[in-house]
Structures are given as C-alpha cells and as structure tokens.
C-alpha cells in the first residue's frame, strides 16, 4: 500500500483533492465481515422463525374455522329404539334450529364405510351397533343456536349427542398459542444475541480506533461527531446483514411455496398441504420479514450508538 501512496504523492494537488475523502474511521478496522455474517444469520433465523410461526398460526386458524363451521350429531343405537326414526327426528330437530345452513344424515351404509378402515372390510358390519352421524353445517348468520339444539335433542332423541369439536379446537388453539410463545422467545433470544454481538464488535472497533478517537477529541470534535463516524459504519453493516439474511429467508419461503405448489398433485404433497397449508407465508409474512430486516438494522445501529457513547464516556 505504501508504494501506491508514494506513487500518488507526486499527483497534482487538484487531482488529489477531488477524490472521495478517506473515512475518518477506516473500514478495515471494524470486524465488518464477521459482524455482517452474524447479523445476516440472526436475521435469517428470526425471519424463518417468524415465517414458521405465521404458517402454523395461519394453518391452525384455517383448521379451526373449517372445523368450527360444522358440528356433528351422533345417534347411538339403543335397544328398544328405532335408530332410523331417531336419525330422522334428530335431522328434523337440527333443520328447525336457527342458524343451521345444511343438515346431512349419513346413511347406514355410509356410516359402516366410516368404520371400515379400522375394522377391515371382511366383517359383516350390519350386525354391529354402529352409531349414525349427522353432519350439521352452520350458517354464518344468524348465529347458530347450539345450546337450543343440544336441549331439543336431549328432550326428543335421548340417544343423540351433539359434538361441536370444542375440545379439539381448544387443543388446536393452545398448540397455536404455544408455537407463538416459542416463536417470540426465539425472536427475543435472536435479538439479544445480536445486541451482544454488536456490542462486542463496537467495543472492539472503539478499542482498535482509540488513537483516532483521541486525535478527534484533540482537534475539537464533539462526542456526537465521533459517534457518528462509527454509527455510519454500523448502520450500513446492519442493513447489509439484515438484507442478506432476510433475503435468503424470503428466497427459502419462495422456493418452499413453489415446491409445495408443484408437489400438490402427489400423495405426499397433498398430506403436506393438509398439514401445513400451502407453505405460503402470505403478504403478512413477507411484510413481517421486511420489518425484521429493518428491526435488525435498527438494533445494530442503536446498540453501536449506545456502546460508542458508553466508551466515549469512559475515555472522557
């Protein structure tokens, strides 16, 4: 480097003066690449976590709304009662209840088909006391009167019971909430690790550049001026790391979405779609990842600002 500068020593003053001013804090003195990598990895982890949480929550909401839109009436065979008559009565009771969009009673054959996967096809199922199912689809308006339906069924068809899937929906909601809590915990840890990494990197940079900080003070620079020389580097570095990590996460979700769409025709793809939806994080997911990129850049900038100010305080 010295030779290059020696060569420039004889350059005309006009040419020399027109070049971009040298940064007061040299870029090479800040552990730039390592910290960019740390911020990129942390942003990637945060984005993947946020995307996965959103995917699970969206799928859980879809399942809940799909399951919550219908209830099931189960009519058990009881000796001394005509199950066909009970099914007809229960169907009529359901149809006459407010807020019911559609009622469909499974026939005896259809009910037998439902249990066939568990009992096998070689049995004579007609001799078994198989309960009959009535699927009741709920209307969005007026609000379905499930309490009235349950009471009317208890009064007119004692062998019938109403299952509104409440327990299953509650478990689903608990699971989705647990995933959100775990996601928030991971995001918090990621932010803490980023803050610590940036703090150490900033302290390192300040220690390396302490002679420069002292000279700046000697020529009358305020702490604000000195801090701005470091913050500029760290803000840029935060944006760079955030953009790389967030960009890779966006790419990953894009590829997963495309792969999921491509595989949707296959048996495995259908199972995955049933479980995870379409692997799409939706517009909200992409917005969340962009917000995370900004958040990581801000965390980097604010952390370095705080550390620079603390270090300047100790130097003073």
């Amino acid at each position, binding site marked *: 480097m010295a030779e290059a500068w020696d060569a420039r020593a004889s350059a005309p*003053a006009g040419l020399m003066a027109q070049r971009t*001013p040298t940064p007061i804090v040299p870029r090479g003195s800040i552990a730039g690449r390592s910290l960019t990598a740390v911020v990129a990895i942390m942003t990637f982890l945060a984005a993947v976590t946020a995307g996965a949480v959103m995917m699970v929550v969206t799928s859980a909401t879809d399942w809940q709304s799909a399951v919550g839109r219908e209830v099931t009436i189960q009519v058990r065979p009881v000796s001394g009662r005509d199950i066909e008559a009970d099914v007809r009565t229960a169907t009529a009771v359901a149809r006459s209840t407010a807020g019911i969009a559609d009622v469909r009673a499974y026939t005896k054959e259809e009910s037998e088909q439902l249990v066939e996967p568990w009992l096998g096809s070689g049995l004579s199922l007609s001799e078994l006391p198989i309960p009959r199912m009535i699927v009741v689809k709920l209307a969005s308006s007026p609000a379905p009167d499930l309490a009235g339906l349950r009471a009317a069924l208890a009064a007119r068809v004692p062998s019938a019971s109403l299952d509104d899937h409440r327990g299953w929906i509650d478990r689903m909601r608990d699971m989705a909430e647990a995933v959100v809590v775990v996601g928030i915990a991971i995001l918090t840890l990621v932010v803490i690790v980023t803050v610590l990494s940036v703090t150490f990197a900033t302290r390192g940079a300040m220690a390396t550049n302490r002679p420069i900080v002292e*000279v700046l003070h000697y*020529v009358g620079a305020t702490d604000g001026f000195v801090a701005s020389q470091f913050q500029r580097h760290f803000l840029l570095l935060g944006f760079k790391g955030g953009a790389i990590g967030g960009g890779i996460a966006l790419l990953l979700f894009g590829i997963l979405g495309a792969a999921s769409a491509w595989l949707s025709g296959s048996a495995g793809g259908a199972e995955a779609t049933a479980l995870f939806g379409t692997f799409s994080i939706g517009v909200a997911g992409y917005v969340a990842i962009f917000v995370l990129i900004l958040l990581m850049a801000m965390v980097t900038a604010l952390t370095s600002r705080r550390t620079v100010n603390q270090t300047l305080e100790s130097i003073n």
Partner: protein
Amino acid sequence: MIRFENVGLRYGLGQEILRDLSFRIDGRSFQFLTGPSGAGKTSLLRMMFLSLKPTRGLISMFDFDTAALSKDDRAALRRRIGIVFQDFRLLDHMTTYENVALPLRVLGHDEASYRAEVVELLQLVGLGERMSALPPVLSGGEKQRAAIARAVIARPQLLLADEPTGNVDPNLGQRLLRLFIELNKSGTSVVIATHDIALMDEYDARRLVLHDGRLHVYD
C-alpha cells in the same frame, strides 16, 4: 487567556509531580516552557489542553472554570487551541493533506472552502510535494511539520507545542520557529515546550521553567 492558581497534579497515590503552579498566559503572548526531561512539561501542556485534570487548584481558560465544563464545552474550547504532540498523533490511514485538514473537516467545513488554504500551508511548511503521502512513509521531520500544520490550520487563539523542533535539523527548526513567531504576530498566543537552549536563544521571549515540580517565570 489561561490562569493557573495553586494547581497541583499527582498520578494515582504518588507524590505531586507539579506543585502550587500559579501563572497566566496572556493573549498574543509568546513563551517557552522548559525544564529538564521528566520535569512535567508534557503534563502541564496536557492540563492547558484540557486532557488532564489537576488534582487541586483552579484552571481558568478563556474565562471559563475548566472544572465546570461540559464535554461539549470542552470540545468547543479545544477548537480555540492548537496542539502539537511530541509523538505527532497523525492518523496513519489518512494522507498528509487530510491530516492537516482534519480540524476543519471536524468543524463541518466543505472541502472546497479550505482546499487552497491547506495546500498553501503545506507548501509553507515544505510538504507541498508530500500532500498525498501517508504518515508511515513520512520522515520524522515531515511528520513534525504535518503535525504543526494541523495545529495551526484552524487559526487557534492558543498554540501549544511539545518539542516541535525535536525531530528537525537546525535550519528547519529556525523556519518552524519563524512560523510560530508569525502566528504569534497575527494574534495567537504561543507556548512552546522545549529543552533546546539554542532554539530559545533564537528568540527573546518569556520563559516558564519547571524545576522540582515548581514553575519559575522569567519575563
């Protein structure tokens, strides 16, 4: 401009290295600060430059009590003072031109507004051909001159110089002394810390002599 009253300085729990210093540096004055090596010249200069706090006594600068200054006030006062360090304190990654222009850059001035002035000063101190050189390739004398140019570029009201001619030949030493004298004539107070008797004999000026931790003033 600067007033010391019963100032004492000790490092840690050791004995006082400077004791009962009471003196004034007036505006437009010129003085040599001298004394044997280790007498405390650099420590005294650092107190004048607000980078060292006395353990006792009062230092008043530009009519401000330095003990009551905020950080920003201290920065503002330092802009009125130029200092030349014994070890130059040039920034190795910046060119000679950029090092000299640093005080003006810190003040937020546009480069175009000071370019000609910096180039002229560099030519005056004999560094016209070394403007784009980095400090590591400069000789000791060239670094010395660059440090002096940086100290005077913002036309300070007070110039403090710690052994400013220690690394240059007598001829250049005389040229630098003339530069300080010119600066003094244009209104800047000058304090030159030196133990170069020949240099002091070149110019009849007030002498502040440090000996055994005490200051003796010879007007």
